[in-house]
């Protein structure tokens, strides 16, 4: 009997230990400390193809307010969230960019207040009358907007802690859309969207190079497995069109090869498209029109290639845009339901049904922990599938502290169009909570189903001196799969 009690106590203690939160030091307010970390402005050559003004429009103040008025009639979230914030500050210490910098404008509530004060000035004079902070839209305010709405990764962590679920991403997106309308945007985001229209993907990989890379990976796979595993491109009549982040073809090649092995093992015909070889949607970080247009390419490619199904690869904002696809570009009923499908859903389901022969011990050299990308988990509902995949392919899996995972996950620090080198200090500051959470587990492999995270987190781990390799979730399956 006593033994049982001690057992129970030990279990409870172990549970408490694995389930306790990460203690994150909260900085005091340090005004203006991040004010100089600003993204490079957009170039005219990129603004033109994405239907934005190539320079600041005349009467830009009036135009901006007109745009705000328009957005207020189009987005209930924006209207409600500008009105109802009680300024309680529950969100203040929840944003990785505040935790990393201490700049008060990186507190979600203060960030939203940058727009709220303009809203008050033009649309809610009663609050202004009683001493509420109100300011006309001027050069100074525009500068604040440009700085701090591009220090927000639209990850929505703050909304989880807001008693009314106020989603700062809605506010950030509105502010960015207003700025875009007057010709103010960042070089990185606009360049990427323009590249998609020109080359079909965010990295600007031309079709011949894409095909080359695929052939190279086929050879790699041949050497590794001795089998003819294909990476088909533009094959009409394939069952599946896979839209992955283009970085998988180029940088995260382990993940790309894992997809190929997966379909090979299943015997499913699949293809990528050189017209839409990108799942990622930077339109999401700019305005509705470009988000819709980028997404449309995927369905156009699906029609063109006569596929039965579109599967989105390991990418975060691709998935956030993907779940909007039916609304933006649908109906998608020319495809087999359910749609859209994320590759983790697809694979986790097949693993459950025993479709693969798996040797878990192949991953025994790794102690794995899992980073929930904000867009896959918090915005995209995929909390269990990647975990199920890891549990099915690895023996050694450990969770990070509970206040840093699942819907409370921290952004890697470079989502929302921030993965650009000129704001490296902000990126490293924003990545700090994730680095500390990873360090606390002692893991040597950080599994991430998102290309932005895969680009950002290795830099973060290096910067904060955490000894963990960053890789995909499918990479683990690939290692453990017995062909």
């Amino acid at each position, binding site marked *: 009997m006593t033994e049982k009690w001690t057992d129970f106590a030990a279990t409870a203690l172990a549970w408490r230990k694995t389930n306790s939160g990460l203690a994150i030091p909260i900085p005091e*307010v340090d005004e203006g400390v991040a004010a100089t970390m600003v993204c490079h402005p957009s170039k005219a050559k990129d603004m033109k193809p994405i239907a934005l003004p190539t320079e600041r429009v005349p009467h830009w103040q009036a135009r901006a307010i007109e745009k705000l008025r328009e957005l207020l009639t189009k987005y209930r979230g924006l209207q409600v969230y500008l009105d109802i914030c009680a300024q309680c500050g529950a969100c203040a210490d929840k944003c990785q960019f505040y935790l990393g910098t201490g700049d008060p404008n990186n507190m979600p509530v*203060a960030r939203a207040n940058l727009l709220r004060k303009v809203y008050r000035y033009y649309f809610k004079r009663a*609050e202004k009358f009683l*001493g509420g902070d109100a300011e006309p839209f001027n050069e100074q305010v525009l500068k604040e907007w440009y700085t701090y709405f591009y220090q927000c990764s639209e990850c929505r962590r703050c909304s989880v*802690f807001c008693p009314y679920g106020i*989603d700062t991403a809605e506010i950030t997106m509105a502010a960015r859309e207003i700025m875009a309308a007057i010709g103010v945007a960042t070089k990185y985001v606009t360049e990427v969207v323009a590249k998609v229209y020109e080359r079909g993907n965010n990295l600007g990989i031309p079709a011949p190079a894409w095909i080359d890379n695929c052939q190279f990976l086929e050879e790699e796979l041949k050497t590794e497995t001795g089998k003819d595993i294909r990476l088909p491109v533009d094959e009409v009549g394939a069952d599946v069109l896979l839209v992955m982040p283009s970085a998988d073809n180029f940088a995260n090649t382990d993940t790309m090869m894992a997809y190929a092995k997966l379909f090979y093992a299943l015997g499913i015909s699949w293809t990528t498209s050189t017209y839409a070889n990108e799942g990622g949607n930077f339109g999401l970080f700019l305005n509705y029109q470009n988000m*819709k247009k980028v997404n449309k390419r995927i369905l156009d490619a699906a029609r063109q290639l006569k596929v039965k199904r579109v599967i989105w690869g390991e990418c975060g904002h691709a998935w956030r845009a993907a779940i*909007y696809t039916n609304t933006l570009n649908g109906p998608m009923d020319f495809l087999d339901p359910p749609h859209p499908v994320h590759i983790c859903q697809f694979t986790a389901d097949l693993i459950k049904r025993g479709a693969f022969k798996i040797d878990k011990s192949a991953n025994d050299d790794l102690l794995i922990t899992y980073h929930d990308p904000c867009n896959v988990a918090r915005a995209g*509902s995929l*909390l269990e599938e990647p975990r199920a995949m890891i549990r099915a392919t690895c023996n050694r899996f450990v969770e990070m502290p509970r206040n840093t995972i699942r819907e409370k996950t921290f952004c890697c620090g470079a989502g929302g169009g921030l993965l650009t080198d000129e704001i490296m200090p902000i990126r490293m500051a924003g990545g700090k909570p994730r680095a500390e959470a990873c360090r606390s587990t002692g893991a040597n492999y950080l599994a991430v189903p998102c290309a932005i995270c895969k680009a950002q987190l290795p830099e973060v781990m290096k910067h904060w001196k955490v000894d963990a390799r960053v890789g995909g979730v499918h990479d683990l399956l690939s290692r453990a799969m017995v062909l």
Partner: protein
Amino acid sequence: MNDAAMVWNLVAALIIGFAYLSAFVLVGGLLLRLALYIQTPVPLKIVQTPGPKSAPGVVARIAGDVLIFPNLFQADRLLWLGAWVFHACLFLILVRHTRYFLYPVPELVIDWQTISVYAGFFFPIPALYLFWRRLASSRVLYISGLPDYITLILLTAIASTGMLVHYFARVYLVDVKAFTLGLVTFAPVPPPPHPIFIVHFLLVCALLIWFPFSKLMHAGGIFFSPTRNQIDNVLYPRYVNKWNEEVRVD
């Protein structure tokens, strides 16, 4: 009629006029705001996941948000306690005050009388905590504006004057009830000539006017928060944005 009586009648008429004005502004302002929220479209599913998979689940989620503030509990335990007690006191005080506007008084209100009076006495404590918190933390101090302080001061002043006329400088209740029932039946009579009561009453009127134009709208707006009131079914059925067609791409 002597001069004093004439002045008093004039003051009483002004108070009654102000009362109707404030009720009109509250109801009109609230209806306009809520109508604005209802008619503004929600273009995309932005539900906070993991979320409820069905409509009853959404009702339960919102009910939870209104009653126990679960998100705040996760964010900051002490703030949650302060805010919850603050709102619970407000609720009890409101329930108790229906006795001045209903005849006969509902049994529930009579049953809750004692605890509601305690809530009135207790109210300044969480209010003071919320006020102190705005000054004590550098983060909350940074975001606090004049309206945030004014709202707390106004509510505390209302509660304090209320307790004064209830306990220390009692107002004659029959007069109060005659006055309030007169207002709701549109047959107004002058208020009891009790200065603290009149201050209490005018502050309440000011609060009603302030309500629809301020952050107090969180009381109504929470029902319209898309992250909380949407069903977590992003994949099926197709969610339609009614202005999607207007946005032309190529």
